[in-house]
C-alpha cells in the first residue's frame, strides 16, 4: 500500500548494554536532574559524614586505636546504605512502575520495539538511578572507614557483593510488585511489606527447620563479616558468638555464606526475570510457565532439604537447640518428640502453601482457556499444547503434589529415624498418606480454581480453610471437654492437614489424651472427604474443558485473511 519502505527497520537493544538502554537513559534524564539529585546527595553526604566523623571522634576520645575508631562508622553506614538501596530503591521501583500504569504511558512502552529483557533491565536500573547515586555518594566514607580501619578486602568485598545482590533481589521484588499490583499505593506498601517480611518474618522460618529462607537476606554474610568490621574488642565477642552458629551446609557440601547466599538469591532472581519477561511479552501471560513453576518448586524442595538434613545430626535444626546454645540452662540437651512432629508439620504446611501459590500462577482462567482454544482452532489442531498457559494446570500441580510429598517424607524420615529418636521408623505407607494430603489439598484447590474461578476459591478459603480453625481454636480454649469437637473442626481445614498427618502417622507423636483418638480419626475422615471432593471437581473440570473445546472447535473457521497486499 505505501510505496515507501518503513523508515524503522527492526531495532535490537541489547539487554546488557545498560548505558544504551532508552528506558535507562530516560530515567537518568528525569531522576538525575540537578535540583532533585543535588538535594538528595546533600542529605546523604551530610548523614554519612556525620556518622563517620562522630564514630571516629568517639573512638579517638575513648581508648580506641585509630583503626578501631575508624571502624565505628562502618555498620551505621551500612545501615544507611541498606535504607537507601533496599527500602527507598525498592519503593521507587514499585511506585514508579505503578505510576507508569496510572499515567497510562505503559502502553507506549509495551509497543516500543525493545525485547522484554531490555525493558526489564531498563526499569531495573533506571527507576532507582537516584538511589544508586545516593549509595555511591556514601561509598567514599565507607572506603575511608575501611582503609583507616584496616578492614581486609576478603571481609568487605563479599559483604558488599551480597549487599548489591540482595538489592537486586529486592528491586526485582519491587519491579514485579509494581508490574502486577493495580494501584500505586498498594504497590508501594506491598513492596515495602515484602522487604520487611524478607528481613523479619521469613528468616524466622530458619528457626523451624527451613534454613534456606535465611539466605534471602544479607544477615548470614553480615554475621560472618562482623568480626572483621567491628572494633577489635567487639569483634572478638562477635567471633566467639559466631563459633556457636552452625556453618552453612548443603547436603554434604560446605559452602561459604556468601556463595550460598548468591546461589539461593540467584535462583529467585532468575525466576523473577522470567516472570517479568513473560508479562512484558504478553500482558495476559501467566507469571510463570508450567514447567518453570514445577521446576522452581522442586528446586526449593532441594534447597530446603539440602540445608535442613545436615543439621539434624548435630541438633542444630531444632529450635530448642538454638535456645540451649544461647543460655545453656539444660545440662544435657535433646530435642523433644513434640518438636520433631511440629517441624515435620511445618515442613508439610510450607510445602503446601508454596504449591498453592504456584498452582494459582499456572491455573488458566476461563478467558485464558478460550483464547487457547481460539489459537488451537486457528492452527487446525484439536488439543491444546500441554505447556501452553491455556492448558490445564492439573497435571503440573499433581507433579508438584507428588514432589512435595516426597520432600516432606524425606525430611520427616531423616528427622524421626535420626539418632535422637532411636527405634523409630517411618514406614513407606506414610509417603502414601503425605501424597494423599498434598493431592487432596493441592489438586482440590487447583481444580476448584480452574473450574469455578477465583471467587469460589476465596469463599472456600474463608469457610473451609479459615473459619473452622478459628471456631475450633475458640472451642478448645473454652473447655477441655470441647477438645475432641475442636479437633474435628480444625481438621476440616486443609491448612491443618499437614500437622494432623504428622501428629497422626508418626510413631514419635505423643498426642494429649483429649485428642489422641479424635485427631487420627478426624484426619482420616477429612482426608477421605477431600479426596472425594477433589475427584468430583476433577471430573467436573474435565467435562467443562471438553464442553469448551467442543464449543470453540465447532465455531466455523473464518475465511483466509489477507496476508499480502498486492
Amino acid at each position, binding site marked *: *500500500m*505505501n*510505496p*515507501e519502505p*518503513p*523508515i*524503522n*527497520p*527492526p*531495532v535490537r*537493544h541489547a539487554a546488557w548494554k545498560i548505558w544504551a538502554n*532508552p*528506558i535507562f*537513559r*530516560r530515567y537518568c*534524564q*528525569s*531522576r538525575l536532574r540537578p535540583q532533585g539529585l543535588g538535594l538528595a546527595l546533600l542529605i546523604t553526604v551530610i548523614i554519612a559524614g556525620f556518622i563517620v566523623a562522630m564514630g571516629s571522634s568517639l573512638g579517638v576520645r575513648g581508648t580506641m586505636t585509630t583503626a578501631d575508631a575508624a571502624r565505628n562508622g562502618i555498620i551505621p553506614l551500612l545501615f544507611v546504605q541498606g535504607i537507601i538501596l533496599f527500602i527507598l530503591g525498592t519503593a521507587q521501583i514499585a511506585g514508579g512502575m505503578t505510576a*507508569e500504569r496510572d*499515567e*497510562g*504511558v505503559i*502502553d*507506549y512502552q*509495551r*509497543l*516500543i*520495539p*525493545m525485547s522484554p529483557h531490555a525493558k526489564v533491565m531498563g526499569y531495573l536500573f533506571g527507576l532507582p538511578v537516584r538511589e544508586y547515586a545516593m549509595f555511591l555518594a556514601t561509598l567514599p566514607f565507607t572506603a575511608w572507614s575501611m582503609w583507616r580501619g584496616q578492614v581486609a578486602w576478603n571481609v568487605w568485598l563479599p559483604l558488599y557483593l551480597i549487599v548489591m545482590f540482595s538489592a537486586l533481589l529486592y528491586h526485582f521484588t519491587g519491579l514485579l510488585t509494581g508490574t502486577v499490583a493495580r494501584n500505586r499505593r498498594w504497590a508501594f506498601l506491598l513492596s515495602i511489606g515484602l522487604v520487611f517480611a524478607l528481613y523479619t518474618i521469613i528468616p524466622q522460618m530458619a528457626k523451624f527447620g527451613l534454613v534456606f529462607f535465611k539466605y534471602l537476606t544479607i544477615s548470614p554474610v553480615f554475621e560472618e563479616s562482623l568480626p572483621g568490621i567491628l572494633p577489635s574488642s567487639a569483634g572478638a565477642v562477635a567471633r566467639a558468638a559466631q563459633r556457636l552458629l552452625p556453618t552453612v551446609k548443603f547436603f554434604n557440601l560446605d559452602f561459604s555464606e556468601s556463595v550460598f547466599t548468591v546461589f539461593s538469591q540467584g535462583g529467585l532472581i532468575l525466576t523473577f526475570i522470567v516472570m517479568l519477561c513473560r508479562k512484558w511479552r*504478553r*500482558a*495476559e501471560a501467566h507469571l510463570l510457565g508450567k514447567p518453570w513453576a514445577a521446576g522452581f518448586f522442586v528446586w526449593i524442595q532441594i534447597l530446603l532439604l539440602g540445608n535442613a538434613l545436615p543439621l539434624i545430626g548435630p541438633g542444630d535444626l531444632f529450635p530448642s537447640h538454638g535456645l540451649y546454645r544461647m543460655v545453656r540452662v539444660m545440662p544435657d540437651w535433646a530435642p523433644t518428640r513434640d518438636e520433631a512432629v511440629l517441624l515435620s508439620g511445618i515442613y508439610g504446611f510450607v510445602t503446601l502453601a508454596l504449591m498453592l501459590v504456584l498452582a494459582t500462577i499456572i491455573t488458566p482462567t*476461563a*478467558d485464558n482457556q*478460550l*483464547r487457547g*482454544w*481460539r489459537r488451537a*482452532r*486457528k492452527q487446525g489442531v484439536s488439543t491444546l499444547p500441554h505447556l501452553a498457559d491455556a492448558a490445564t494446570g492439573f497435571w503440573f500441580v499433581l507433579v508438584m503434589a507428588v514432589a512435595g510429598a516426597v520432600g516432606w517424607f524425606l525430611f520427616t524420615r531423616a528427622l524421626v529415624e535420626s539418632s535422637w529418636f532411636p527405634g523409630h521408623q517411618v514406614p513407606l505407607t506414610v509417603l502414601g498418606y503425605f501424597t494423599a494430603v498434598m493431592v487432596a489439598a493441592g489438586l482440590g484447590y487447583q481444580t476448584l480454581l480452574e473450574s469455578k474461578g477465583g471467587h469460589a476459591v476465596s469463599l472456600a478459603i474463608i469457610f473451609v480453610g479459615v473459619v473452622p480453625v478459628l471456631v475450633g481454636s475458640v472451642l478448645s480454649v473454652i473447655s477441655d471437654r470441647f477438645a475432641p469437637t475442636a479437633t474435628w473442626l480444625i481438621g476440616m481445614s486443609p491448612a491443618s492437614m499437614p500437622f494432623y498427618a504428622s501428629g497422626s502417622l508418626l510413631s514419635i507423636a505423643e498426642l494429649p489424651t483429649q485428642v489422641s483418638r479424635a485427631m487420627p480419626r478426624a484426619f482420616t475422615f477429612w482426608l477421605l472427604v477431600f479426596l472425594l471432593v477433589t475427584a468430583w471437581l476433577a471430573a467436573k473440570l474435565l467435562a467443562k474443558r471438553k464442553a469448551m473445546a467442543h464449543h*470453540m472447535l465447532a*465455531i466455523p473457521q*473464518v*475465511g483466509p*485473511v*489477507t*496476508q*499480502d*497486499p*498486492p
Partner: protein
Amino acid sequence: MITSSLSESRAPAIDIRCLRVDYGDFMAVDDLTLAVPAGEVFGLVGPNGAGKTSTFRILTTLMEPTYGEVVIDGVDVLENMEDARRIIGYMPDLAPVPSDLKVWEFLDFHADAYGLGNRQQRRQRAAECLEEVALTGQRDCWCKELSRGQTQRVVLAKTLLHRPRVLILDEPASGLDPLARRDLRHALRKLADAGNTVFISSHILSELAEMCSSLCVMNRGRLLASGTVDQVRHQLGSTDRVLTATVLARQQEAAEWLACQPAVHDLRLADHKVVFGFTGTDDAQADLLDGLIRHGIRLRAFEEKRSSFEDILVEVAESNRHP
C-alpha cells in the same frame, strides 16, 4: 452481521474477521468483521462501552481477543506482534504523557527506542513531528504543563515519530478547540494522502464526519453500519426528516392532502406553513413535492431538515442503555 464493504478495489490496510472480546461473562466485542481500505481516514464511532477501545487495543497488540483474526498491512497481528508494532502508530484515549519529562525528552526517548539514528537525527525527527502538529514552540515545556489540546498534539507527534503506515488514534480530538480540530483534520488528511491509513475513534459523530472519508458505527460490541456518511445514515435507518411546505394559499387543503400520503406523520400548521415528519426515501420525497404541486397547491418554499448525526448517536446510545 453487517460487514463493511468499502472501496473493494483496494486491499484493506486493516482486515478484521469475526473478532470477539470477552471480559469474563461480559462480551465487549461481538463478531466484528471490518475492512479498512489503505490510504483512508476511517472513523469508528459509538457510545461509551461500544467496544471501540477493546477493538483498538487488539489492533495494537495490547490485548489478545477471545477469537478472531486481525491483519494489518499484511501482518497477522496476533501471530507477529513485533512486526505489527513497527507498522502501527497508536495514540490511546486521553493521550497520556509522563509528568517528569519535557516535550523534547519525551519524543527523544521514543525516537531512541525506535532506533531513529543518533542524537542529532533523533532531535531533527522530533522537530519535524512537532512542526507537523504545530507545537514547535512548546519543545522545552514540561509535558505536565501542557493544555489538553497541546498534550493531544504532543502524543500525536510521538505517534508519528517512526513513520507508521497505519495510525490508530483513540479519541484524538477530544478536548481540542475548533482551531486545533481543524489542524488535526488537515494533518490526518495529509497523512492519508501520503498513503498512510488512519483509523480513528470517537463518540462524537460530527467530529468524525468532518475528518473521515468513511466510518463505521458500533454499539454494544456489534458493528451497526459502515460506509460513507450518507451510507451510514441510511443503514442506521435514520431517514426521518422534518419537511416544511410554505404555501401562498389553501393551507388547510394542502394539509388534508398531505395527511393522506404514506410516510407522512406529525403534521401541524403554523402561519403559512405546513410542517410534517417524513420517513420515505429521497425519491418518495420528490414524488410528494410533485404531487403537492399537481394538486394545485402553490408553494413558495419547501424546506428539509434531517436528523443530525448527534441525534443518531443519541438514538444509538439510548438503545445501548435500554437493550
